[in-house]
Every structure is written in structure tokens, then in C-alpha cells.
């Protein structure tokens, strides 16, 4: 259909740009410009900045090569990109364990961890880091996409290619484990949605 893709990229949705890039590959550059920093942040948090540089670039190469598989009608491309990035994280799980171990050792955490309210909370965070490292990979992926990246359960489901119920149960199990490790210092669990809030 002629004119189907005649829409300015700055006004177009991610889905429209991906669709347009099937005919005009260079249009995919807009997806890169919009989301590279976000994906780089995600990978840097999970694997460190050095790996993030290479892997974030790889995310967009993979996405470009597989863009024909992007589900038509979907407007937001981020969950799909997070899914690709998460797969790359899994391929580098050793690096993630090393990073988490380093963070756990730095109980003061000033160089790695954010400013905390007290030395006690810094100690808790070290415990939390170790607990995070002890989670199985699928639970950690779901939990961190939710807690760190603010993805809703449905977005995580799209990212990981699993049912939404599976996401909910993975997150619930992961949180239960963290609370056990923290010795009940956390408050009662509740199903807080991420920043996306689009369940």
C-alpha cells in the first residue's frame, strides 16, 4: 500500500518504524536512537559498563536482523529489545555473577552501591545482592526487569516470551526468597506494579 510508511519518525510509534524499516532498512536508525541509552543502562547495571558497550550494540544488530519477527500492531518496541538484551545477559551469566559478587563484597558500597540511609541498610543491601545472585536466572530476569526497569508483568511476559502468569509467579517466588534472606526485615509483600503500570 503506497503511502503506508509515509509518517515522520519523530511522530511514529516504534511499531510503525519497525514496519517501515522492512522496506527502508535505514529507518531502523530511529529505533536505535530512541532506545540505545535505555538498553545500554540495563546491560550496564546487570553486566557492567565494559560489556554493556558491546552487548547493547549487539542488541540492535539482532533486533535489526530479526525485525520481521516483531509482532505487527505492537507500538512499544522496548519489551522486545529488553528480551533480546536479557538473552545476551544469560549468555554472560558468569559476568553477572562476578559483578554481583563484587557488589556484595563492597558492603559499604560507596563505589558501587548507591548512597544509602545508614550503614545498617548498606549491610542489608549487601545481603540483598548475595540473595539476588543466588536466585535462578529466570527469576532474576523477571524480578530485575520489574524492579529496575519498571516493566509491567505483561511487558515482561512479552520480553521473555512466557505467559503473564508465569512472570507473576517468578517474581513472587523471587521476592519470597529475598524476604527470607533479609530475615523478615521487609514489609509485607504486595503486588506493586512497575513504573510502566501497563498490566
Amino acid at each position, binding site marked *: 500500500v*503506497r*503511502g*503506508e*510508511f*509515509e509518517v515522520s519518525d519523530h511522530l511514529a510509534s516504534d511499531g510503525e518504524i519497525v514496519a517501515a524499516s522492512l*522496506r*527502508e*532498512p*535505514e529507518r*531502523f*536508525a530511529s529505533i*536505535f536512537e530512541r532506545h*540505545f*541509552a535505555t538498553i*545500554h*543502562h540495563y546491560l*550496564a*547495571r546487570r553486566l557492567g*559498563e565494559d560489556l*554493556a*558497550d*558491546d*552487548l*547493547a*550494540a*549487539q542488541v*540492535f*544488530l539482532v533486533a*535489526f*536482523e530479526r525485525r520481521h519477527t516483531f509482532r505487527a500492531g505492537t507500538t512499544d518496541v522496548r519489551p522486545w529489545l529488553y528480551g533480546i538484551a536479557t538473552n545476551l545477559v544469560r549468555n554472560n551469566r558468569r559476568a553477572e555473577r562476578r559483578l554481583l559478587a563484587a*557488589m556484595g563484597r563492597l558492603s559499604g558500597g560507596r563505589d*558501587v*552501591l*548507591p548512597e*544509602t540511609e545508614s550503614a545498617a*541498610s548498606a549491610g*542489608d*543491601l549487601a545481603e*540483598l*545482592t548475595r540473595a*539476588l545472585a543466588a536466585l535462578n536466572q529466570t527469576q532474576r530476569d523477571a*524480578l*530485575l526487569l*520489574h*524492579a*529496575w526497569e519498571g516493566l509491567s508483568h505483561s511487558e515482561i511476559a512479552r520480553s521473555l516470551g512466557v505467559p503473564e502468569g508465569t512472570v507473576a509467579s517468578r517474581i513472587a517466588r523471587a*521476592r519470597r526468597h*529475598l*524476604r527470607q534472606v*533479609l530475615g523478615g526485615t*521487609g*514489609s*509485607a*509483600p*504486595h503486588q*506493586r506494579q512497575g513504573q510502566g503500570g501497563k498490566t
Partner: protein
Amino acid sequence: MNDLTRLRELRTEVPPPSPEAWANARLALQRAVLEERDTRVPSALRLRYRAAHRPRPRRAVPSVLAAAVVVLVVVLVVALGVGAPKGTGHQESATGGQHGLVHSTWKLVSDLSSSWSVVSDASLEPGVHLACPTSSTCYANTLTDLSRYSLSYSQFEVTHDGGNTWQQSNLPVTLSAATPLSCVDADTCATLGIDGSGQSEFFETTDGGESWVTVAGPSQLSGMIGQALWCTSASACVAVVQGPKGPAAAYITSNAGATWSESPLPAAFGDGFPVSLQCSSSGACVAAGVSENPQGNVGLGPILYSTILYSTDGGATWALAAAPSGLGQPISLSCADSSDCLARAATAPIGAARTWLLASTDGGASWQLVHATGLPSSGLTGLSCPDTSDCWASGFGGLDSHGFQGFLASTADFGKTWQQAQLPQGIIVPFDVQCPTSTTCYALALQRSARSASLVLLASGN
């Protein structure tokens, strides 16, 4: 404070990606985009040679009356000072006439649709080549599909009157792979190819395509991939080719293919895939090829890079040219004389308005980047420099809702500034451009009408 809140505290604040990270990632993606475009866009249209070819009258050229009207309009526009706005890309016209090749328009000379039909297909590249040794003689050849995955190069179309009439010229055998035709003069052209049994053969015509003499090519070429041939006389030719097992090498003949001597290429060329070769009668040769990144997958996927070689003794010995690192694929290379050459080279970030070329003034020994202002940033299909100031480039600048955006652009300062010419209506992909003299250029292109597309020959000038 619940576990999620604590977990968010654990989220380290990382700095934004560095400019270097942005640039590297952009470049990697851009290469992927360009590689897909360079292979996909031409292959979106497939050419099929018509076996039942018959001589036919040429397509009607614009009538004298129409030409007069065009001239009148141009004169009026110039007189009124209403020029095309600068920077409008495809619609921007060259200023016309001041210097050698700079023409404002191209005219349609021949419709070759009775020889080649265009079939929509997304799987094969058309491989269209044009060789114009003189201002009136051109040889056109394309792949001829025998089946979906088998291609042949057995037919040529030849014109000796500037495209007004064409004759068919058939090689005695069908080739599964071959070099583009290298022509010395209007009557003498050669190609090196692989026949159906996998043997390399050298073909030469010395009567303008009426007949072809066949001799065995270098035996090492069986199943060759990547090839470039350049002949400086009817007897002297150089080929840079890659065999099926060994690295690429140069092969030289001084007796019209009766014997061939092999010359190794520098180790840095590695498994390079030869894509371009040009030699002069003084013995200067320049060859370009592409290789995969020797470091393999460095997190950004395998990246192709180019290597340029030069020779000062007719291909007997070769050295690696001094060129900027990180070059893209120099699929187009043109030398105006034994010293001055221009090549498509570096890739620029996606969306960048800049296009970079490489220029050499020492016979290919060293190359400098040239910012090619006004030249579209990708999709260059042909480059021809008949003298040390003038060049024409052919290519496609992308896709829009009306189809491919083909262009022909000229430079009068050897690549620094370019101006796009007006093309006849419906020209979507100029495949190749050849300028046998400083005032005559031809281009082989696809022209799309309402329901079909056809292969046409264009000539520069109003």
C-alpha cells in the same frame, strides 16, 4: 521498606553510554543496514534475458519539438533566476555545461526490454554491467537466470552507434561466474569465467563482439569467487581472483590468455574478496577487495572491511596501500590515469548527510578521505572518472513511497562536491555508469512505468 524498594536501591546509577559506545554501535548498525540495502535493493528487481531476442527499433527519443520546449523552459527559468533550491536531493540539477561532464540532464537512448525483462523477485542480484570503451560503443551484460540459484553470463548486447541499435553477442559457452567485461577499444574486450564443468576460461573478442576466442584460464580458478579483470591491450591482461581453497592471487597474461603467471598478493589481503581492479598501460594497477574482520565477532558481529592494493609493474608485485582504517566496501573504483583514482570507501553514521570517498594521486599507493558533499551516502553502484577532475556516480539513495530513488551525480573537482542530475521520468535504479570520454557518459538503469520496469540505456547531455 519492602524488598522491592530495597532492590531498587541496589540499582546502580550508571553513566550514560559514552560517545564512543554510541559511535561504535551506530557504525555497526549502519553497516548492517548498508549490507542489507546493497544486497537487497538491487535484488528486489530481477532481470531475465529473453531467449527469443530480435533486433528491434530503438525506443523513440524525445522529439525535436519536445527538446525545443525543454530548452525554452530552461532558458526562461534561468532568465527569470528561478533555480532549483539547493539541497533538495533528487530534484537538484547540476548547473550544466561549465566543465566537461557536468550536464543538467540525461536522455533516454534505448529501451532494452526486448532483450531483458524485469521480474520481481527478492532473491537474486541482477549483476548488470556496462563497458563503454568509446563514445559510441557499449557492451551491456547481465546475469541470465537458468534456474532460481544458477546464473549464467553468456549473452551480451553491443551497440556501436551510441545505443541507437544493438546486436546480440553470445559467448560460445555458458558461464556460471565471470568477471565484468574489460574492453580495450571498440572491438576488443575480454572476460574470464568458469564454464559449466568448473573450468576457468578466458574469452576475447577482437571484432566488436561478432566472435569470441576461447582459451583456458588459470587452472587455479576452478569455482572462483570474487574476480576482477583488466586488459590494457588485446594481449595483456591482469586478473585478481580468489580460488576455492587458497587466498586471492593475481594472474597475468601477455599473450591473450595462452599462458598465465601467478603473483601472490600481500598477506594482509588474507581471504580478501576481490571486487575491483584497474590498470594503466604504464603498469600501474589498483585492486580492492573486502575481507571479514580478522578479529572475528567482536561483539558487534562480523564486519567487512576493505583492503586496497597497488602495483607499479603491471601486477607482477603488489603492496598494501596506505589508507585510513575502518573502510567500508569499495565496490566502485575508477582511475582517471595512472596516478589519480577515486573509490567508494568509508561508511558514515546512519542518517549522516556526509558521504566519504577515497582519493589517490599516486597510483593507489596512498589514499585520503574526501568528504563528498552532495553525494548520497549509500547505494553507490558505479563510478567513472574519465579525467582528473570529472566523474559520474550512479546509485540509489533509498526508497520512498514511489519506489527506489535512483541518482546520477557528477563532480567537477574529483569527488569533493557533487550535483545530482535530472533523470528521465521513472528511472529507479541506475546500475552502472561509464564515461569513455570527458564529454560522453552512459548509464544502464531500470525505468519503471505504471505496470512494469525495463532496462534502459541513458546518455548524458540534454
